[in-house]
């Protein structure tokens, strides 16, 4: 590969203009805003499509198990039983979730479960903007249905309100339940 080296003028050798330029650059850098932040006191808000902690909605879920099928590492455990209920004056046979567990410690946050979910809006989604998932115990990372739906003790961002409750960009006009 041909490399173009910058041409040096004979004055560059002892006039040290480049060095002065460098000093100017670092001096200006002193007063610019910094890139890093004081993490526990300040946190950066993740991007809208950031994949954070799971959030699950029992009401929306139709227990189709598509997410468990889509999961490449099989960490979604679903148990279902059939039940006959009266809905709109008719007896209907519906599936009821007994168990919806995710072994989050093995999860790679690929979001394929969210993609596979047929409900609108999704009943399982990862765009919660929550990334502080570290625990002191491995077993704390096994989440059951209730924990997946209500993990209010997890760090959350009050300012983000709506995005926290609903996955943004997933709602279609008139497609709500």
């Amino acid at each position, binding site marked *: 590969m041909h490399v173009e080296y910058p041409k040096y003028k004979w004055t560059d050798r*002892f006039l040290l*203009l480049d*060095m*002065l*330029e*460098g*000093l*100017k*650059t*670092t*001096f*200006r*850098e*002193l007063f*610019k*805003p*910094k*890139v*890093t*932040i*004081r993490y*526990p*006191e*300040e*946190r*950066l*808000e993740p991007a809208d499509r950031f994949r954070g902690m799971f959030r699950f909605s029992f009401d929306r879920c139709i227990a189709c198990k598509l997410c468990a099928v889509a999961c490449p590492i099989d960490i979604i455990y679903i148990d279902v039983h059939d039940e006959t209920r009266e809905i709109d004056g008719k007896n209907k046979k519906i599936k009821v979730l007994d168990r919806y567990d995710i072994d989050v410690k093995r999860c790679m946050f690929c979001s394929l479960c969210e993609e596979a979910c047929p409900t609108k809006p999704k009943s399982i989604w990862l765009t919660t903007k929550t990334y502080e998932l570290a625990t002191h115990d491995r077993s704390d990372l096994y989440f059951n249905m209730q924990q997946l739906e209500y993990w209010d003790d997890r*760090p*959350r*961002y*009050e*300012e*983000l309100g709506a995005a926290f409750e609903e996955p943004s960009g997933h709602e279609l006009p008139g497609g709500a339940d």
Partner: protein
Amino acid sequence: MIPEPLMRYLVWPTVKFLVAFVIVQVVVAAMTYIERRVLAFMQARLGPNRVGPWGLFQAIADPVKLMLKEDIVPANAEKVGYFLGPMLPLIPAFVVFCLIPFGPPPTFVVTHVNVGLLLILALTSTGVYGIILGGWASNNKFSLMGGLRSAAQMVSYEVPFGLSIVGVLMLTGSFDLVRIVRYQESHAWNVLPQLVGCFIFLVAMTAENNRAPFDLPEAESELVAGFHTEYSGMKFAFYFLAEYAAMLVNSCLMVSLFFGGWSLGGVIMGRQVGLTTVNLQHLGLLGGVIGATIFLVKVMLFMVAYIWFRGTFPRFRFDQFMDLGLKWMIPLSLVNIVVTGILILAGAGTRYPAMGEVVLTLFGIVVIAAVILFLMKGPKPKARPAGVAHARRVSEV
């Protein structure tokens, strides 16, 4: 009561030295914090901010950690040399503070020696022995190479360091730092007539202290840490202390020789304007304290300049470094001496005896103005590309 000579030659110098010693310790402790913080700011990060308000207690946390650390001596080290290594550079670094005028004499000078500058030059150059000894006694090839580099550096930069001062000596006609400062009060700061000397002094003093971009004896990427690879705990702290004390000495010299010492002001129309010795005398001790404060502020500016250079320039390759010292700095300083001498003598017999100094000063002003103009022009700095830095920050939950 204590007899008068004893007071004059023993008690007062001891008290003054102890005060200077404490000030040096405080400045060194503060510098550990300031260095890390300023360097971080230049690199677009925040630096230490966890310990205390704005991370200020980092200056205490660092020495405490070093004191509590286990002191490991390598098995095959030369025990005596290994022990003496960190001590040797410390002694000259602290003794030199007896000779530096922190403020108007006699109160703020520990010992007023009329060849003070010679003594300081002699003492500071002995600091390198500790580095060579420590590097050799560690029984480690990288450490030895660090020590050898330090020696080579000292030999090649001691010469321009001394020669750059000669111009000042010719102008002021004295080795006495107090008289040099007084001269600058009654004329102009020596940086104007001796701009070239000041520049050489700046480069040589950075090289003498083994500071970046001339930190070849402790080049992390080449020699791991050079002469102090094997040192830990308090022994390492002593090397650290000696380095910063030597930096402080050289900054003090820089301020005394070229930047008007404890005075802030000069001569306009034959009258002294600003905070000079004559104007401060009416205030008594308070005036002295003001002078010492001005001196310390100037010194701290040069200490920050060390960090500025470290944050800006990449390390020299060793041959480039020797090239700069022997082929550029020494001839340049010799030319400076000759030109200064000719100009001073040219005006000596004529109706305008200060003609040479005026020409030198005008040259200095022109060069400084050109540099400032060069720095002012050029494209406006671009803002940092939008990205992480502009992401919304969420406060504590």
